């Protein structure tokens, strides 16, 4: 990846992380761990990959993203705010009564392509969007992001069969493999492993990537574009809570908000990283 772009993405990802923390802190609830684990991915997609138009959020030929792991809405909202779909001030009222930003993604929010959050459903919708593009000879791409716990849902595998059957090579799914779900380690709760072999057996082209390395993400998404007649899944090794030391790899941060002291520390850590990058 071009060094300037990489640095820019790293800077943006810090801002996205600050937005996630601000949203979850002010909401006094939400899911920081899984939001932080996809912060780099979401930054890469919206700032380096997807054809999107913040001034025309409903542009029919835009690329789509369905956040199948909808509980990590703060990551999506923070990226959309950073991208200019709506004011960053909205993050402060995430989950508040009467607020624009609902606890889980809602299609009526500018830039949100699909309501999601009931796990396993988003990938099916992404399949429908990809099929729709195929039948109309549209060239837009459809991305969907799944949790590694989420793929325990049977519907994911119905969708996996569907995508391969209809050769949806305009669909790229990402599995955020942070290894943790609410009740503990995914292999202890209900192991979805081997994830790579499962998707291969379902007829997908599988690419492995490092969720926190923009070179790795770029290589993965570039490879995805070379694949024909097969859907692509990027199994992305990630760290839950990435970027905030005390949240990293700690399942207790799956679905709880930091208190004022913890928030201050988290902001300090991410801000220090941001300052370092900005020089």
């Amino acid at each position, binding site marked *: 990846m071009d060094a300037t772009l990489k640095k820019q993405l790293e800077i943006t990802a810090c801002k996205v992380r600050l937005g996630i923390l601000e949203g979850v802190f002010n909401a006094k609830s939400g899911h920081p761990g899984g939001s932080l684990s996809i912060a780099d991915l979401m930054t890469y997609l919206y700032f380096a990959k997807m054809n999107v138009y913040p001034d025309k959020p409903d542009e*029919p030929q835009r690329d789509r993203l369905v956040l199948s792991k909808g509980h990590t809405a703060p990551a999506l909202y923070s990226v959309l705010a950073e991208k200019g779909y709506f004011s960053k001030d909205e993050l402060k009222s995430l989950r508040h009564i009467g607020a624009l930003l609902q606890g889980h993604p809602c299609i009526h929010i500018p830039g949100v392509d*699909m309501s999601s959050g009931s796990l396993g459903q988003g990938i*099916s*919708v992404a399949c*429908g*969007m990809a*099929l729709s593009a195929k039948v109309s000879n549209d060239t837009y791409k459809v991305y969907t992001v799944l949790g590694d716990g989420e793929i325990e849902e049977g*519907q994911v595998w*119905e969708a996996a069969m*569907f995508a391969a059957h209809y050769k949806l090579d305009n669909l790229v799914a990402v599995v955020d493999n942070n290894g943790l779900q609410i009740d503990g380690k995914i292999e202890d709760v209900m192991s979805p492993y081997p994830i790579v072999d499962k998707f291969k057996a379902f007829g997908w082209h599988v690419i492995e990537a490092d969720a926190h390395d923009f070179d790795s993400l770029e290589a993965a998404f570039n490879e995805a574009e070379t694949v024909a007649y097969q859907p692509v899944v990027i199994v992305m090794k990630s760290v839950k809570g990435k970027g905030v030391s005390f949240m990293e790899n700690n399942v207790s941060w799956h679905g709880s908000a930091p208190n004022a002291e913890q928030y201050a520390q988290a902001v300090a850590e991410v801000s220090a990283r941001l300052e370092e990058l900005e020089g």
Partner: protein
Amino acid sequence: MADVKKIATRESYGNALAELGDKYENLYVLDADLAAATKTGIFKKKFPDRFFDCGIAESNMMGVAAGLAATGKIPFASTFAMFAAGRAFEQVRNSIGYPHLNVKIGATHAGISVGEDGATHQCNEDIALMRTIPGMTIINPADDVEARAAVEAAILHNGPVYMRFGRLAAPVFNDPATYKFELGKGIQLRDGKDIAIIATGLMVSEAIEAAKALSAEGIDAMVINIHTIKPIDKDIIINAAKKTGLILTVEEHSVIGGLGSAVADVLAENYPAKMVKIGVNDEFGHSGPAVDLLKEFGLCAENIVNKARDAVKAK
């Protein structure tokens, strides 16, 4: 009604899709390995490029339909009522209802008249389930003419629609030359002052037969066809109650949560009136020929006459 033409409304559904496919190029049809039974196979034959089999995976099918609708297509997702409203309830609620996407659900084999397949496939709960989803329109057509018209009305309506079709051949009583389908409007088929029989779907023709028999006994029964169960035509129900003071609802569905409950909701809040409900009484069905089952469960003109007579006497 031996000489009356009979057509199952699932046939009407398949035929209507195939006919309307020319007029509406944006129409796509999904099925879950039941195209031969839901009759979407008729559409598939004519428009193979606009038909997608999703296999035996109804939950995914509802999501695929949502994705098609979110990108401007008008998808009809077809399967048996049991799987459309039952198995895929949460997908319909969260992936279609909540984002208010323009998905049409064609649910066939509704009710007890599925017959020999028995209780696992006899869905008597679908109307109740679908009624609870905000913004969901529910249409339960009574015959071939109405069913075909309903399919086009669903296409023209922007938003999710649940359509309920039957497996059993139903008498065609509407005249295609004069019939007009108005979404959300009930149809008074017969005037009367002693009792108002409010029916839906397969039970409408039974209600008409019952009213004729009641007339011979000197009981003057109004008959109303409610094809749109949600949003329901409040005015026609309130006016029927005002005129007759006695309402009898008939549906091939559980008495819990269906037409009877919807009518009761309207009356309780607007014009309380005495009411009798005929439907499946909080029990599962079982195997048997459809016509025999309908008789056994009281979903027939004879039982309507008996219940109406008793209710009028008790007035």
